[in-house]
């Protein structure tokens, strides 16, 4: 809980600051958009959180988002598949990607950074190759499927504001993830592997399978995220769809309290972390005196400050615990 308080505080400060600086921030339309973007990136962040929990990293997310996002309209319109077949194929493909990458990390003992960096390039390359680098769109059809990405759920009695549909997906995924991490044996094992792979091995925990599961969940959520993203925007270009999304996902996870050294993190934290990122991007657009071109600089700076503050708080808490321990 304490871990979330830090990032929640930062979130509130930023929200208050931006709403003072820009009158357009707290409008129904803007909030709706923010919620939609937060939900989409939150799903990616929750996914990469599993991998970071095991002290690994997944850089391939952008590539998987691109491949899933390009293939969805491609299979529907060019190949004439049904939405069910398409979605099943996309999800199955994402799972296989995760199993392969996880297998290379766990059994091949190759650093996750390398495996997934190659994955990032390979999957984007595949997407561009399959689609011949052509923009893919839904051609105005498949509105029922697209609802999961661009739908709006109206609240009875409220006219101006509706809940974006991806929020539902995020909600379900967050709940399932929390149950998995906190209530199941495999969730406990995943944290144990991140804390100390060696101690996990000596405790008879199937370390390799736990790792593979983490990469599989991550790729599955990345593929599902890619599906939602493309349903939301309607058409996508293979050369830039999903660019840098892995970094947004990792940043959200780190802001939300995940440690890159593994073993620690919270699902709620990631969601707030994703929200912080989206509010910042939004602020840069809304606040007139902030040049849009400074987007990356501002986001980078805020993440750095957040991580530094977190680190100092942690050390302070650890020191205090230690001195208290000596006192007893």
């Amino acid at each position, binding site marked *: 809980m304490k871990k979330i308080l830090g990032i929640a505080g930062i979130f509130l400060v930023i929200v208050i600051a931006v709403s003072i600086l820009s009158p357009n921030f707290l409008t129904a339309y803007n909030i709706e958009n923010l919620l939609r973007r937060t939900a989409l990136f939150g799903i990616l962040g929750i996914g990469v959180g599993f991998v970071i929990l095991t002290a690994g990293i997944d850089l391939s997310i952008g590539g998987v988002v691109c491949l899933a996002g390009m293939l969805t309209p491609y299979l529907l319109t060019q190949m004439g598949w049904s939405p069910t077949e398409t979605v099943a194929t996309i999800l199955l493909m994402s799972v296989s990607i995760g199993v392969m990458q996880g297998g290379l990390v766990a059994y091949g003992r190759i650093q996750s950074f390398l495996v997934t960096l190659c994955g990032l390039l390979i999957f984007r390359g595949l997407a561009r190759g399959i689609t011949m680098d052509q923009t893919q769109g839904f051609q105005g059809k498949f509105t029922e499927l697209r609802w999961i990405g661009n739908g709006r759920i109206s609240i009875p009695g409220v006219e101006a504001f509706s809940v974006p549909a991806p929020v539902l997906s995020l909600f379900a995924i967050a709940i399932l993830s929390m149950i998995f991490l906190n209530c199941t*044996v495999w969730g406990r094992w995943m*944290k144990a592997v991140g*804390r100390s792979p*060696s101690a996990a091995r000596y405790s008879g925990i199937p370390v390799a399978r736990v790792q593979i599961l983490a990469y599989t969940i991550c790729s599955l959520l990345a593929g599902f995220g890619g599906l939602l993203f493309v349903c939301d925007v309607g058409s996508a270009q293979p050369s830039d769809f999903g660019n840098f999304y892995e970094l947004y996902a990792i940043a959200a996870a780190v802001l939300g309290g995940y440690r890159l050294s593994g073993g620690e993190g919270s699902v709620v934290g990631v969601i707030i972390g994703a929200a912080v990122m989206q509010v910042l991007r939004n602020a840069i657009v809304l606040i007139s005196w902030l040049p849009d071109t400074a987007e990356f600089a501002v986001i980078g700076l805020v993440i750095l400050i957040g991580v530094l503050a977190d680190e100092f708080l942690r050390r302070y808490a650890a020191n205090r*615990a230690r001195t208290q321990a000596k006192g007893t």
Partner: protein
Amino acid sequence: MTDAAPILRCRGLGKRFAGVHALRSVDIDFYAGEVVAVVGANGAGMSTLMKILAGVLTPDSGEVFLSGQSVRFAGVRDAVRAGIALVHQELNLADNLDIAGNIALGREPNRFGFLDRQAMQSQAREWIERVGLDLSPASDVSTLSIGRRQMVEIAKALSLRAKVLILDEPTSSLSMGETSRLLALIRTLANQGVAVVYITHRLNEVLDCADRTVVLRDGAQVAEFTRDQLTRDKLVGAMVGTIHESQRAEMQSTDTKSKARLVVRGLLTQAHPKSTINLTVRKGEIVGLAGLVGAGRTELLQSIFGVDRRVGGDVFLDGQVVAPNDPVTAARRGIAMVPEDRQRDGLMLEDSVRINSSVVKIAREAIAGFIRRGAERTGVARMIDLMKIHPALPERQVALFSGGNQQKVVLAKWLSTEPSVLLLDEPSRGVDVGARAEIHALIRQAANRGASVLCSISDTEELLLLCDRVVVVREGRIEGEMNIADATEEAITRLAVVGSGDGTSQSEVAA
């Protein structure tokens, strides 16, 4: 051979760790041009003494005099500057540099900040010739055998103008040829006026090359022999001392007829792939593995559990084969392992007592993969109570507990699952005396419940207190075994140090 005044002189050196004497009031003089061997069983205090001399540790009492001046080193650099160099058991060379680079490391000759390679190489050549290495200073260290690396380390020490050269078990990983070359070099260096201090377990080497031999036991200096006084029997006698018959526990089990539970057949470990190991532990029996550090006991335990890859052989539990190289099924079959390095391999230090002690059990009592929280909490509370873990705070971080309590947490992790086989690697290392007794009692309880216990313990006295049977391992082989009634510290140490043969034939050591 010796000058009138000692170059290095220790007076009343003492050191305690957590209240235990590692070294008590040691007086030794070292002279230029002399080779002094310091010998003793595991934990006799040799390493502590060397670390004090080399500036790694500061003594709690006593003084060190260098050329008559009282010195107190603030660290290794201090000692090196004063002319004392320690060549460590684990080699400390930078693998990615060549010989010259290693010898000059940290004080590279340079011109305006650019490395002066030529000066570096020519300086290095002088030193490697002096240690008798026939190699180019530009050879990469990573391509050298362990023996040659050791020579490079010595060359580096000499290049630092060492007047006192301390060698900590320099031959532990050398082949016979390399060993004799090293011993010859030591003699040459002594003739050139270096004071050599030589720590070893290997009695043959002591007999071969030491001008004087100092024996430590339980941190105290118990004997000193000059070259002509020294015999093997005297040495072993001094190392072992008298036996404390009275200290043996009365609680040892007498049931020797129960059935075999853990059977090891023809096991070959990676560390000693040519030494076959056969071993049986009966139900309810505690078998101790005795031997020197590096004899292969840890590798044996790890191969049984499956965290180390086996080269060959089988392990049976209650007559059924245990799959090799698979700690997951080994654990599921009821084999438990308490590793030697509990901080690295036994615990998740940042997690709580609850998380650590329940990590195995939650999987056993889970329903459809879901942890039963209530059962977990009551189980942990029961173990804390049973094992007297103090303070009894299940949510407290394990890192904040003492060594003894940390070890109890590792034991709780396994004992809560009532294992059929308990493998223990140095179960009371770094544990205070009170907790050690409690840990022994817990191990005995597990055995009485039917577990087969196999534990590697370096402290012979402790071995005799805890075990029903002792198996002595030496250089990867089982050298002999004895029932506790027949076991003496002397017999165990003799087997561990010189083996069961005539003792004069040094067995082949893999390089």
